[in-house]
């Protein structure tokens, strides 16, 4: 029963999953591919970076020009600290929204609910499917990194690459679970998409701008983007503390989703 919902959730998303795998693979491939050019022109790039406002640089995951030009700093700036994280988060939010609110919006929820499928099983199966799909994309990134590592001479260790993509997946999962929670609580697709993307954008900029704006430094500590940034897994490997924080937040969101969905009227 549970596994049917899980399998259907995966199967119905196979098209977009493939697109995200290809898209993220290309993004990482290109990022790694241009790195030799960056390395050769390091002096020019350092000057360029140092002429940039601090805040802009910190948006790329580090305010230190020299660090940004190391292999870890460069790949991190594109994949974990900016576009990569955002793209994977967008995927996660679309899955988290579709899981409950999206289905209610299409008025098909009563078909499944009329079968002996507990509401909780629907939420948990779809969460599992979301986590699996995010995992597949993160794994694809890992494969590209592992292949490119010796070719471009990046010098990443395997544990660090695994840690980096695992924590990137967790970051996306936090936001996907937020969408799942809002969907479970409200059942409204527009609200769910709005809240989840709003929180994503807000936390992204709070983290990026905290370097410049003093009073943002408190709130910065609460943003998942900051947790990933300070963990810096590509250089430092898996950080237990930040991993646990992201897992805990995810668990809270999933629990909220189950609680919300079980207690309210469903739109049919």
């Amino acid at each position: 029963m549970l596994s049917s919902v899980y399998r259907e959730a995966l199967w119905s998303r196979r098209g977009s999953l493939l697109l995200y795998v290809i898209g993220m693979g290309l993004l990482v491939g290109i990022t790694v591919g241009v790195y030799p050019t960056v390395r050769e022109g390091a002096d020019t790039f350092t000057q360029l970076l140092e002429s940039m406002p601090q805040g802009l640089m910190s948006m790329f995951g580090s305010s230190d020009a020299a660090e940004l030009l190391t292999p870890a700093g460069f790949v991190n700036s594109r994949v974990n600290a900016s576009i990569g994280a955002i793209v994977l988060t967008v995927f996660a939010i679309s899955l988290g929204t579709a899981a409950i609110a999206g289905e209610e919006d299409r008025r098909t929820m009563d078909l499944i609910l009329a079968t002996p499928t507990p509401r909780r099983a629907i939420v948990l199966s779809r969460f599992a499917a979301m986590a699996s799909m995010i995992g597949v994309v993160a794994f694809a990134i890992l494969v590209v990194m592992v292949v490119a590592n010796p070719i471009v001479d990046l010098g990443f260790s395997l544990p660090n690459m695994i840690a980096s993509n695992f924590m990137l997946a967790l970051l996306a999962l936090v936001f996907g679970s937020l969408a799942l929670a809002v969907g479970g609580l409200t059942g409204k697709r527009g609200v769910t998409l709005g809240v989840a993307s709003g929180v994503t954008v807000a936390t992204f900029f709070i983290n990026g701008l905290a370097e410049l704006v003093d009073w943002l430094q408190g709130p910065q500590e609460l943003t998942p983007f900051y947790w990933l940034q300070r963990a810096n897994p590509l250089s430092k490997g898996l950080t237990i503390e930040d991993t646990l924080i992201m897992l805990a937040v995810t668990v809270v969101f999933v629990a909220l989703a189950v609680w919300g969905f079980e207690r309210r009227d469903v739109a049919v």
Partner: protein
Amino acid sequence: MTAPIFLDGLTKFYGPIRGIEDLDLEIRQGEVFGFLGPNGAGKSTTISTILDFIRPTRGTATVLGLDSRRDSVAIHGKIGYLPGELAMYEKMTGRELLGYLSALRGVDTSRQVASLAERFDLDLDRRIRGYSSGNRQKVGLVQAFMHRPELLILDEPTNGLDPIVQQEFYALLREVSAEGRTVFLSSHILPEVERITDRAAIIRRGRLMVVAEIEELKRQAQHRLEMTFVSPADPEVFRALETVRSVAAVDRTITVTVAGSVDPVVKAAAAFEVENIVSHDGDLESAFLSYYSEDDDAE
């Protein structure tokens, strides 16, 4: 024997809006029960509450002896449900959808699906998106019947079906009922409910107006007779009849509404030279006017 459906003071308000209020109802095993009411009467609200998609404001529903809230999952395993506004996964084929729903029920329905599809002349290998509305409805019916549930809850089941498929559906209902299984169906079409159900309830503005055998309802139902005479007839003759509720005369045509037997009207009309008589069974609204108007003061 526990009643397949037992409602005790079932009430649902959407905020201040009344969906249904104080519904008391007992369905008998093996009967085909009609739930009649105009648009917005509360038919779908009742069904959604019974199936625990939405939660009652107060009151309880007991289905096959199980509590609709506490035992909803067990109940869902024993019932077949057809939504009133049927939405399905557009990208699946009919077969894929039925396969998915069977998997969720944990039953192999392939033989039933094949035989139902054949009865309804339904091609299962097309995408839902490409089905006509009648064919969508057939898929909905197949998924409701395919696991041979002991209780069927069907919200306006004949929506969009052509007459031939309707007949097939009526035959299916008779078989189900002959096997001792129970059908609860909603409709706003009186002649349909008259034809296919044993008992019916009439609901209006969220309140149950009457629950009765179909034969009883037929006796009380109002008909409208439109009689055209060769030369103008005297309307007073009809007004004097006991079952006549109203009389209107325009030129050579006299229109009467009759509650109960039309026999005295036809006999009275025979005193004149009749050109034509048209009988309107009437839609629910006019047919059960007596029930409807009682409620108006109570608003």
